[in-house]
């Protein structure tokens, strides 16, 4: 792999790792609140819809999802190797494609809100 390409993959991995480490505990906790039936005020339709309609809200959600998806893809590629799957080119294509699809879906839905 060319050095320039590697730097991009590594940069996304590091940024995504930082973002997910900081944000995901709170994100999981919010899903936990929803699961108990005590959906917080800010996640009721009107408020959350208003948040996701604003450009700042859209940008925050997209950046977190985009970076975390690429972070997960990069690490799942390593996990595949750790569990004995030695077809790296195939695995890399698969995980990065799924991350790309996720990113496009996130952008598509976010643009469609509001």
């Amino acid at each position, binding site marked *: 792999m060319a050095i320039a390409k590697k730097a991009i993959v590594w940069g996304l991995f*590091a940024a*995504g*790792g*930082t973002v*997910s*480490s*900081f*944000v*995901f*505990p*709170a*994100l*999981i*906790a*919010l*899903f*936990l*609140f*929803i*699961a*108990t*039936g005590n*959906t*917080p*005020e*800010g*996640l009721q*339709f*009107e*408020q*959350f*819809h208003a*948040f*996701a309609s604003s450009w700042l809200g859209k940008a925050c*959600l997209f950046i977190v*999802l985009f970076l*975390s*998806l690429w*972070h*997960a*893809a990069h*690490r*799942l590629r*390593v*996990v595949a190797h*750790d*569990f*004995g799957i*030695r077809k790296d080119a195939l695995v890399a294509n698969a995980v990065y494609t*799924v991350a790309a699809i*996720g990113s496009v*879906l*996130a952008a*598509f*839905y*976010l643009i*469609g*809100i*509001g």
Partner: protein
Amino acid sequence: MSRKPYVRTMSTTTWYMRNGRYKVYVLRELTSFLVAFYCFLTIFALAALASDSPDRWNAFLASQQGTGMVIFHALALLYFLFFQTMPWFKLAPKAMPVQLGEKKLPDSFIIIGHYVAWVILSAFIFWLAGVI
């Protein structure tokens, strides 16, 4: 090189079971499934929100309720904290050491700084969501 070099036999699928450190490494690596899972769960939520229909959003919220989901999210939260967030903060000073002139900022400063920033950011997210 000798004609018959010694090649240590090693399982490519269960190699980490031999050693506690390797097991911890694999447990850390497996949190990547959680990252991917919650990304797609959030995208799924955004799909419901993008319908611009309160009924569709409420149906999504209802579909996420239940004892099984409570247990899953609670375990996921603990697992994620201990095997992603905490290790990531712990390695931060190694990944980005801060040099001040001749001296290096102590590792503990960088780690504590991460925890402080994390608490503030989490509180901000909870405030935005109306939890606090």
